[in-house]
Structures are given as C-alpha cells and as structure tokens.
C-alpha cells in the first residue's frame, strides 16, 4: 500500500507539472518531463503563436474549449489526493505519505485553479481580440454543369492546358464528359 501511495504521488506530481506547462503554454512534452536523464532549461520556450511547430497541424479548424488545458492538472490533483487517501488511511505509518500527497494535492489544486482562471480569461480575451481564421480553402475553376455531352472548349475548361496549369483537374474529369 505504501508503494502504491508513492507511485501515485509521483504520477500526480508529473501530471500536475505537465498540466501547469500546458496552462502556461510551454513547449514541452510529457516524455521530456519524465525522462530521467538530460537537462532542460526552465522555463521552457513557449509555443509560438499558439501553434506547436513540431506536430503537423490539422487542416480543419479547431474550436478552443476554455479550461481544457487544465484537465491534466486536475487529474494530477486527483491522483495526489488518492495518494494521500491511500497513504493516510492505511495506517499511522502511512501518515508521512499522506502528508506528502496532501501537500502535493493542495499545491496542484492551487495550480489547477490558477490555470483554469487563466484559461477562461484567455478565452475571453481571445474571443474579443484574436479570432481564429479558417484555413485557406483551395479555389477551383467553375465547372460546367448541364452540358456533359458537349463540353465548351471555348471556355478552356477541358483543354490540356488545364492539366498543366493548376493541376486541379483530374483524369476522371476529362473522361467523364467524353
């Protein structure tokens, strides 16, 4: 039981610190935090313009959910509280683990509260000042509808030059009407 309390306390601290990094928008990964060797500068650099340059970004625009970043910190707080419960309820000897877990839980709870408020304020400011613009959609030339059998070559929409021009017309488009 004491071993379980120690493990949960450590994981709670790790998750709480990662959640703190998320709320502060630090460019750090969870594996970097729990990797046992190496050094890292603190505080780590922030994510540039809210976009992580290391991971490919989806083309579909995401909607910002307030307080979503604080979920790992909240999980860390819950894990630390569990560690405190397990360590404290087992026996009087586990009171040390309970005290450590309780302190960690309270600290992480404070961090989580600050992170949530900062997230909501960030969401409030982002809705007013900075609005996410949707990604630029590719523009296609207008297709001729209703005249499948008789394509209009005068418009230049079915010619060979269209294939080399933008590369936007596939082979199926050429074979469809002929």
């Amino acid at each position, binding site marked *: 039981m004491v071993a379980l309390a120690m493990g949960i306390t450590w994981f709670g601290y790790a998750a709480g610190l990662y959640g703190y990094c998320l709320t502060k928008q630090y460019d750090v990964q969870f594996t970097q935090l729990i990797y046992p060797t190496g050094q890292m500068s*603190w505080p780590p650099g922030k994510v540039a313009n809210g976009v992580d340059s290391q991971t490919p970004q989806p083309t579909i625009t995401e909607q910002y959910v307030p307080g979503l970043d604080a979920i790992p910190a909240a999980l860390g707080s819950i894990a630390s509280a569990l560690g405190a419960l397990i360590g404290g309820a087992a026996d009087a000897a586990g009171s040390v683990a309970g005290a450590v877990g309780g302190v960690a839980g309270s600290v992480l709870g404070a961090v989580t509260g600050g992170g949530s408020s900062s997230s909501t304020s960030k969401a409030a400011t982002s809705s007013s000042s900075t609005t996410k613009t949707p990604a630029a959609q590719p523009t296609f030339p207008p297709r001729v509808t209703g005249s499948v059998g008789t394509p209009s070559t005068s418009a230049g929409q079915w010619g060979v030059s269209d294939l080399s021009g933008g590369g936007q017309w596939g082979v199926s488009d050429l074979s469809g009407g002929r």
Partner: protein
Amino acid sequence: MADQRGLLVAWGVAETIVIYRSAKQHVPPRPGQLLATSGAFILLAVLSEFAPELALMVGVGIDIAACFQVWPGSSAGDVPAAAQALGAAAATP
C-alpha cells in the same frame, strides 16, 4: 505497516534532497529527476513487507548517496533559462 515508518522517512529525506537541489536554482524538480528515487523506494516498500530492516538500510544508503550527489537525479537539476542565456552570451566572442 508500522515498521515502514523509517522507510517513509528515508523516502521523504531523499525526495527533499533532490527537490532542494533544484529549488536552489529556482527550478522545479522534473519528475524524471524524482523517478529514480521514487522507483527505488517503491521497490524498497515492496521489499520491506518481507525484510524491513534490509529495506531501511538500503533506503538510508540511498539518502547518503543522494547527499553526496552519486544517486541518479540528485545532482544539480535543470538550468534556469536566464542562466543558460547568460552562458550562451558569454561563450560567443
């Protein structure tokens, strides 16, 4: 469980040494730095179910090793960003 009290104290001392070294540089201890200490004491807690005296002795040995900075993660922790920037500026001619 009552005979695990000494092991818990030894765990707290080891964690305190690691945290103090990082806090002295105004940097929070990375969980990776605490991984070796926590993992070792988790194994010692399991061992103390069968041999509490041996587990306590090994735990005190880990405390001494952490005090002399020969235990993994017990050396100077992460570098503050300001100090790193100063070092980079001093290295450039």
